[in-house]
């Protein structure tokens, strides 16, 4: 066998003992650094989790960092208003300075701290509900605001967060959640987007090595450590490995300069279909009154997700209407039924102990950027309606006058 002189020199210099000692030492040091990084309010300079600091940008904020994000913005002596859920709550399409949660903070005043945990393509279960459960003891005066959807515990792209909270022992026992987590482990191939086993292993490794905490820190402050094949096509404006701290908030950076009604015309038929599907949720009760079907998925899902023993009256669910322009394309009867359906949803949720409010139907066309997302013009309107409801809740609870 021919000898490789370079290899011989290398082997002559290498000592297995010191090599493995160095390896173990640096692994331990990295894990300790990760524990230290977990105590930092890494995203403290941000007001929301825009896509470059979310799973869409290959950043997976850890429960520690999300907790620090909330704590950094909300002193304990204030009433915490924790907002979260989908891109409607995140304020996709709204400029940073004109974000609806900024207006909400302004409307509510200094006794409140509004924190936005909305995520793109997410559900209330993404960051919001686990965080609300964890923070309940730290913030006894807390209102949770989210949009009315039909949420599952395990949502595509954000399940890692729930697994991490679960494996870190941060959550209380919830049998329906445990069942769903176990189910995802056993039925991986049927739910390819969940990858239950992958997420379980990932959260175990994270618990041992704190690797996400450390590399998220380095990626935010100094250089981004993950190559993303999507970066050049989908996010062409920033260099591949640029520190995410230097990346601007691009949640408003879309082609949203279209005037009314052009901005509503793409997928108009699809949105009309969605609006009509809402009407199917209504039935007539024996008294002739229009009510929501008993088996309505969104009401049953919220009923499962937030057990009765929790204080449901602090959960405010927003029934944000589809854009008034899309509604104008429905017949007058359908339009009226749509409003009734949203109202019936509110009543069904109220029967289960939740707070709910309908909004958006009477807003001007300009208040929406597209069929579902509110614009800079709509942000103060939404904030005004939500602030009014929040003040009602806090007054009823005796938290404010």
């Amino acid at each position, binding site marked *: 066998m021919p000898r490789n002189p370079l290899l011989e020199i290398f082997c*002559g*210099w*290498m*000592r*297995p*003992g*010191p*090599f*493995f*000692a*160095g*390896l*173990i*030492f*640096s*692994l331990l*040091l*990295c*894990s300790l650094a990760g524990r230290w990084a977990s105590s930092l309010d890494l995203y403290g300079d941000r007001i929301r989790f825009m*896509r470059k600091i979310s*799973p*869409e940008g*290959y950043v*997976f904020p850890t429960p520690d960092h999300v907790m620090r994000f909330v704590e950094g913005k909300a002193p304990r002596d204030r009433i915490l208003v924790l907002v979260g859920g989908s*891109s409607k709550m995140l304020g*996709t*399409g709204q400029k940073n300075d004109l974000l609806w949660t900024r207006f909400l903070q302004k409307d509510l005043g200094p006794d409140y701290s509004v924190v936005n945990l909305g995520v*793109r*393509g997410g559900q209330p279960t993404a960051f919001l509900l686990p965080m609300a459960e964890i923070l309940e003891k730290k913030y006894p005066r807390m209102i949770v605001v989210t949009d009315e959807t039909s949420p599952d515990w395990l949502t*595509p*792209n954000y*399940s*890692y967060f729930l697994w991490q909270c679960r494996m870190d022992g941060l959550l209380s026992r919830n049998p329906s959640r445990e069942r769903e987590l176990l189910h995802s482990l056993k039925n991986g191939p049927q739910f*390819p*987007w969940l*990858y239950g086993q*992958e*997420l379980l*292993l*990932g*959260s175990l*490794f*994270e618990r041992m*090595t704190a*690797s*996400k905490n*450390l*590399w998220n820190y380095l990626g935010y402050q100094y250089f981004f*450590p*993950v190559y*993303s*094949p*999507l970066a050049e096509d*989908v996010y062409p404006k920033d260099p591949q490995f640029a520190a995410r701290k230097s990346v601007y908030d691009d949640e408003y950076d*879309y*082609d*949203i300069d279209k005037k009314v009604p052009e901005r509503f015309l793409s997928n108009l038929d699809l949105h009309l279909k969605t609006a009509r599907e809402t009407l199917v949720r209504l039935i007539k009760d024996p008294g002739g009154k229009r009510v929501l079907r008993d088996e309505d998925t969104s009401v049953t899902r919220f009923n499962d997700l937030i057990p009765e023993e929790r204080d449901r009256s602090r959960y405010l669910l927003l029934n944000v209407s589809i854009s008034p322009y899309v509604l104008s394309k429905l017949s007058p009867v359908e339009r009226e039924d749509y409003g009734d359906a949203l109202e019936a949803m509110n009543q069904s949720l109220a029967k289960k102990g939740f707070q709910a409010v309908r909004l958006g139907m009477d807003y001007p066309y300009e208040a929406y*950027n*597209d069929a579902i*997302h509110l614009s800079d013009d709509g942000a103060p309107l939404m904030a005004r309606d939500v602030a009014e409801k929040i003040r009602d809740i806090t007054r009823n609870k005796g938290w404010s006058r």
Partner: protein
Amino acid sequence: MVTMNPLTPDPKSPRLVLRPVLSVCVSLILGALVGIILHQLVYRFSLPAQPFVYAAF
């Protein structure tokens, strides 16, 4: 008179005295670098495999 073979290093030369120490240091540093890379790999492979692009508009 003893003459030394120029190809045989002088056992008292500092190069040979330092070699074991240097060898330990090089091994330690290399091990530490591999440890850092391993930690990064744990992070990289613990990220969910499926990319996610959400079209909001």
